């Protein structure tokens, strides 16, 4: 390995202090569980093994959280093994304040996704679980990788199980949605690959750490930024690259939608934070106005489109476009408030939208319809369900006391300090969010009333909703512990960017 990349690693990476490779364990535990499942035949055993794998992975990831040092911006729990020496490709892992919560989000949602599919997936449960767990491995891998090729492999490998989830277990237009999803994301990814190769030819290594915080020429930065940005903007998705999202969300089975909304979209925003800003700071500033305009358009456009939806799932999918707009808006204000807000919103959107998709899944399993009108007037029939639904709806439009309120405030403070107009439009978007969520809520609770008998939420469903509910409240009322963990990494990112202005 090159001398320079070693130096960068010493500067930024703390090797693993624990006695076992905890990051590799977290990444590959789900895959091992998935392999085990393939060998099994008993339906019940398969379900239980899958769930236990998910829970163990979550527990292991909590170990990371408890051993995480919040007083440093360094990457922690580092692991480094040479992999393809001919091209200086290494198996390098490490996490910092930006990634740790994204990993926790993934490991939290995996068992939830398994639980929510417990009865709704009727056929090929084995393969379904395999896809879910394989995807979990790839997602955690994406957040832990500190080598471009490793990152890219996880990033792309995740497409396969997600594609299969939509294509095999999806709704009526699954073919269209799954292929659209795959081609859109792959289109972005190949440019990402070209950018990665050009980084290698400049640095002589695929190490992410040694590629960060260097004074590249402006032309190089602009091209690299554009190549990265296409990939990440499609993943986020930013307006006008969002058209794959409603189709994919609507057709995917509940677990797929939840994973898509909670984790997959975050990978795009994470890419902006991890690659665009540190590698191409000048180009990021150069393109910031464009990114902010696109974000604001996304917020407003998403809001208006939501107002006209009759399909619950589609409504929530489009609301993701708006919410993700807040995240990219926060990132491209280049203020600490904006960045922290963006990070918080990534978690918030993951939790809240994930929960809303779970709610839609619960009702869809019972009525086999996602139309708002078909599911109207549930207030009397399903009180518990409506309670949860209402709660997460409040959170979705940033009701004070819920998590999204804190995140949006952070983003708005950051935005107003830099771009007043953009801030103004973002506030309009927030109002729109209240409008469409309340409209949905009103229909679902009070709308048409008849004498249908629909079973209320079961214990299993309540169990996986409760942690999400607690998180919404915790982050809404006392967000300090969350901010504290990510603060050092983000402020380091800020100072480094300023150095290379």
């Amino acid at each position: 390995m090159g001398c320079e990349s070693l130096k960068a690693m010493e500067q930024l990476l703390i090797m693993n202090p624990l006695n076992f490779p905890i990051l590799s364990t977290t990444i590959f535990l789900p895959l091992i569980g998935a392999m085990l499942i393939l060998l099994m035949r008993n339906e019940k055993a398969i379900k239980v093994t899958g769930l236990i794998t998910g829970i163990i992975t979550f527990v292991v990831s909590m170990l990371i959280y408890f051993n995480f040092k919040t007083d440093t911006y360094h990457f922690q729990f580092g692991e480094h093994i040479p992999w393809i020496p001919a091209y200086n490709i290494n198996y390098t892992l490490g996490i910092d304040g930006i990634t740790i919560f994204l990993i926790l989000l993934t490991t939290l949602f995996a068992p939830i996704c398994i639980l929510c599919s417990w009865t709704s997936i009727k056929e090929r449960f084995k393969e379904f679980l395999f896809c879910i767990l394989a995807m979990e491995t790839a997602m955690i891998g994406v957040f832990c990788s500190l080598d471009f090729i490793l990152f890219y492999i996880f990033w792309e490998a995740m497409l396969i199980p997600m594609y299969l989830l939509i294509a095999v277990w999806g709704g009526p237009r699954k073919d269209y949605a799954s292929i659209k999803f795959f081609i859109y994301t792959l289109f972005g990814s190949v440019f990402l690959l070209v950018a990665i190769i050009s980084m290698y030819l400049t640095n002589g290594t695929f190490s992410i750490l040694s590629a960060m915080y260097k004074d590249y020429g402006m032309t190089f930065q602009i091209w690299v930024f554009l190549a990265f940005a296409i990939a990440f903007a499609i993943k986020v998705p930013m307006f006008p690259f969002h058209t794959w999202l409603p189709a994919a969300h609507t057709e995917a089975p509940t677990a797929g939608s939840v994973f898509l909304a909670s984790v997959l979209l975050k990978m795009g925003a994470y890419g902006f934070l991890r690659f665009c800003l540190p590698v191409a700071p000048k180009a990021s500033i150069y393109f910031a106005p464009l990114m902010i305009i696109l974000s604001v358009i996304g917020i407003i456009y998403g809001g208006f489109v939501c107002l006209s939806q009759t399909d619950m799932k589609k409504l929530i999918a489009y609301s993701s476009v708006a919410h993700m707009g807040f995240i990219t808006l926060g990132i491209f204000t280049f203020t600490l408030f904006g960045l922290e807000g963006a990070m918080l919103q990534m978690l918030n959107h993951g939790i809240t939208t994930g929960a809303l998709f779970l709610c839609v899944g619960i009702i869809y399993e019972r009525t086999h319809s996602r139309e708002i009108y078909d599911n109207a007037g549930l207030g009397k029939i399903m009180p518990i369900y409506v309670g949860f639904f209402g709660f997460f709806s409040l959170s979705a439009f940033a009701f004070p006391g819920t998590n999204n309120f804190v995140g949006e405030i952070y983003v708005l403070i950051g935005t107003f300090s830099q771009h007043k107009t953009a801030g103004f439009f973002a506030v309009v978007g927030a109002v729109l969010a209240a409008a469409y969520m309340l409209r949905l809520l009103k229909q679902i609770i009070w709308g048409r009333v008849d004498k249908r008998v629909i079973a209320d939420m079961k214990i299993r469903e309540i169990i996986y909703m409760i942690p999400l509910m607690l998180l919404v409240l915790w982050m809404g009322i006392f967000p300090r512990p969350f901010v504290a963990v990510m603060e050092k990494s983000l402020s380091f990112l800020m100072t480094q960017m300023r150095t290379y202005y």
Partner: protein
Amino acid sequence: MLILPELNIFLFSILLLFISISKVKENILTYAKLLSVLAFLVSLLSITENGELFSGAYRIDLFSQVFKMLIMAGFCLVILMFKNKREIEEGFLPEYFMFLGFSALGLMMLVSSVELISIVLSLEISSYSLYVILPIRNAQTKIQIEASMKYLFFGAVSTGIMLFGMGYLYGIAHSTFLSDIVLVLPEFLSQPIGIIALVFTLTGFFFKLSLFPMHFWSPDIYEGASNNTTAFIGTLPKIAAAALLIRITMLAFPGSMQLINILIILAALSMTFGNLVGLVQKDIKRLLAYSGIAHAGYLMMGILALSKDGNAAAVYYMTIYLFMNLACFYVVILISKTGENVKIDDLAGLSKRSPLLALLLAVSAFSLAGIPPTGGFTGKLFLFTGAFEAGHLPIVLIGAVNTVISIFFYLNLVRMGYSKDVAVAEPIKLATHEKVLCYLFIFLIIYMGIMPSGLFEVFKASI
């Protein structure tokens, strides 16, 4: 024993000839399979051989031995994949295997040849055997006749062009030995005669590789030939052609811009044409033919870099292409009941009929498309890096965009296998050895994806 692998495959073929006139004819399939595994092992054992024969016209070094090993691996797999005796006209089975063996022998001789006349001879040994076995197929429509005529005519024309180019090479160097040509060629490459000589010489191998514009034969021949023959024609000659392309383009090192430009244009046209036409195919074998044309373009990206890394990348890509392509053909062979061609629509409900075959198809399709963690991705990564390193960004971008175009039809295969259901899903029963072969393919494709280091180092050392 320097030419042990060649000798071995020669004896193998002769033995099959004797079997064809003997009484043990019934068990021919078993014998052929055993012998082919033996042939592969022998080629593996002689990988470290080194030396020259026939006054330096025949070189045995790591480069040639690696390629012989690959050719034998492919040959062995093609024979092992053979399932249906009814596919071949009755009574021709021993001859069929014999000519396959001769063709493989020609290819093995080709990668060791470092002299123009022996190159032509080896190429023709391989081609003539294929001309013979192409029409031996039990098809109702007689498309195999048309296919074999086409292969013969196009093959003859491309050989003619190649000989024309070689005549010029001889004129330039006054020698038929590549080692002499390499001394004078670089200075001639700035003149039209050098370019014409080299490009025309390469044409014969473009034909084998089915690179644009020498690709016309491939879709019809893929469609017309029996499934196993197609698997052979679709992979093995391409490996040998890649070897010779590397050998001959390296003559142009340290690089003539005109030659590189020509190769870039051919590569770009080949992948774009192959992928675009691939989008509308209905027959899997035709689809694979167009995919082969596209992959020839990808492969050229490594070769036109004219560097050690680029060439090693090309060899790596050829190796993974061998496995993923044969894996696709294996699915075709196992699905087709009587050796008929398989349409893409016939894949519907495959995951219900045989989960293993559906998985194999998915893995090989994702690999052909270049999605990690399969070998197709790692190979493409090496190719892209090699071409980029040599300063050819445009072709890398074209390759990247082509990857996206191609995903459409590769994904279509997976989609048919997994999400399309049929009313009556008749299960496909696989024998144990067939299952083992399926798992072997899956393992190889994924192994080459995540653990490329060892093989890549060997290839790099061999260049």
